[in-house]
């Protein structure tokens, strides 16, 4: 299976390549991609350099244009697609079917990968994207069980890629407006979720309170590490009980399912984390690379290394296990 690795900066890109990535994905420094964070992403020149470095080593470069085009400003997305194609991107990762149509029509030879943000979760949805835009690969939403992925792989006419490690969306990706409901900024429109610009930490009677916009997302006792207030991983009151109503502050780790995913016919595993530093990227990529060829025993050791890198030190295999639902 291919290992698809994140790069938020040229430095992280280089680390990912040396750590053994089969492909690296990155985005331009604007709202055309879903990690539109300050200080991250690539200029045209930086992407061009990255491609020149990666190609001779046989490492592919995927460019994520995975937000939805803002009406009236489509030019920004079209231009980004034009530039990525011109610079020689091996694939464009797209979410907006309007943008897929543009790329498919103008650049029929360009590989289109369907972003997880498109929420293609079943045979007919994937058939749509393959038939209408000749999509070559679909990144599956993090809502499917192994059994469902296995069935799907047998019945679709394109490659399947699955998220293996890193941040975990609890909601079907690309179909969530929780962030913009609280802050006005959303993954789909602005490439951000629970943006730092709207985050506040506040001391309140010996506890630390984290807020997103006008809403308290969590409260931490003294000495407890105050986590980032991602909306769907917050603690709320439902029916008088305080709880992580959607999901604990965990991250995704499907290392325990590598063989099953390979048997299912999944061709690529994706590591989330373009917002992460180069040291993190290097460690996760090299560990995952080893895990792909390791025996089950060796893998459990590697799992421990990876858990120490995860947010909040807690991981889940998410929807791959039916009982997660």
């Amino acid at each position, binding site marked *: 299976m291919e290992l698809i690795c994140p790069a938020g900066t040229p430095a992280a890109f280089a680390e990912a390549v040396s750590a053994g990535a089969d492909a690296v994905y990155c985005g331009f420094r604007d709202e055309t991609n879903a990690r539109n964070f300050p200080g991250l992403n690539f200029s045209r020149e930086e992407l061009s350099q990255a491609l020149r470095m990666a190609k001779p080593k046989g490492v592919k470069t995927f460019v994520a244009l995975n937000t*939805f*085009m*803002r*009406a*009236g400003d*489509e030019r920004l997305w079209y231009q980004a697609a034009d530039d990525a194609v011109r610079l020689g991107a091996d694939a464009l990762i797209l979410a*907006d*079917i*309007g943008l897929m*149509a*543009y790329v498919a029509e103008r650049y029929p030879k360009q590989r289109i990968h369907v972003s997880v943000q*498109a*929420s*293609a*979760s*079943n*045979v*007919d*949805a994937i*058939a*749509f*994207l393959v038939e209408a835009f000749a999509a070559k690969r679909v990144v599956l939403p993090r*809502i*499917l069980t192994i059994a*469902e992925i296995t069935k799907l792989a047998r019945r679709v006419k394109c490659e399947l890629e699955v998220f293996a490690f890193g941040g975990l969306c*609890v*909601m*079907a990706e690309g*179909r*969530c*407006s*929780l962030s*913009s*409901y*609280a*802050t*006005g900024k959303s993954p*789909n*429109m602005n490439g951000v979720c629970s943006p730092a610009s709207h985050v506040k930490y506040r001391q309140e009677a010996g506890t630390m309170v984290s807020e997103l*916009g*006008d*809403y*308290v*997302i969590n*409260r931490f006792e003294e000495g407890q590490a105050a986590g980032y207030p991602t909306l769907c991983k917050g*603690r*709320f*009151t*439902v*029916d008088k*009980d*305080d*709880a992580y*109503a*959607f999901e604990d502050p965990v991250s995704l780790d499907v290392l325990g399912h590598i063989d099953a995913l390979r048997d299912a016919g999944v061709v690529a595993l994706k590591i989330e984390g373009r917002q992460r530093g180069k040291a993190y990227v290097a460690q996760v990529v090299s560990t995952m690379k080893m895990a792909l060829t390791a025996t089950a025993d060796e893998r459990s050791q590697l799992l421990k290394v990876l858990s120490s890198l995860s947010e909040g030190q807690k991981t889940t295999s998410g*929807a791959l296990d*039916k*009982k*997660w*639902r």
Partner: protein
Amino acid sequence: MRTSTRLTLGPLYFLWDEAKWRDFYFRIADEAQIDRVVIGETVCSKRMHFMEPHVVDVIERLTSSGKEVVLSSLALVTLDREAQLVRSLAQQEEYVVEANDLSALHLLAGKPHSVGPLVNVYNGATARLLVDRGATSICLPPELPSKSVYDIVSALPDSDFEVFAFGRIPLAISARCAHARAKGNIKDNCKFVCGDEPDGLSLRTLTGQSFLTLNGVQTVSHTCQALLFEIPEMIQQKITGLRLSPQNCDMVAVAQIYHDVITEATEPAHALERLSKVYLDVPFSNGFHHQREGAAWVSKFRSLTG
């Protein structure tokens, strides 16, 4: 021209018991100022059997009272059983189907269909693609600011566009059921606890502030979107329909209020006052439309002065 703006009743997102469901739609058929009714389970395939005993009667009553009936498809399709449900909807010829995911768009291609607000239509290019594939009506996503809405509509002046004008806003859907989890169950053994709350289960912050509402696998807003002051401008900008999403309140009265604003029989300010007496204790919002956080209420008068 004004009376040509259509009122659509969107699909009921909540789980109501059989009798309540039937009586609700019977009353809509008999009394409501509604032109089009989108009907059918949209949120969770496990709930299908609740409406089954009455669905034929309800559709017949709606049709014979002159209302156009549109059948809603599921928002999230992962299981074979769910895929099959969408396929059978797409295969029947009697009623127009409203697509709520990509699979429905695939299966409905080439025949007239409607596109629901849960499909990501953020720009004219996407809307055009869908229209070329047979979409005759598109309800735009509630997250869209008015600028995007008007840009899309002006790119396709001959097409039919609806805006989500009333109801708790559908914000997210998950494979996991937060509603069942809150009651100590998992989705596969949920015991249909979402049926206990006909208007959803309130989720508050740790400081007691109302924030979101759980509805099975779906999360909707605590606030109720209420676009009333915006109606004259939307009509001017060629929005052809307003969508009212059913809540646990007198929806016949809600429809009447919107109808009165469309026909200029009542002023928006007065309409808002009437609305607050029909849907009690739920704050109204219109922030998404004004490119603000969705929970915000942007006062017409304040926005005019600065």
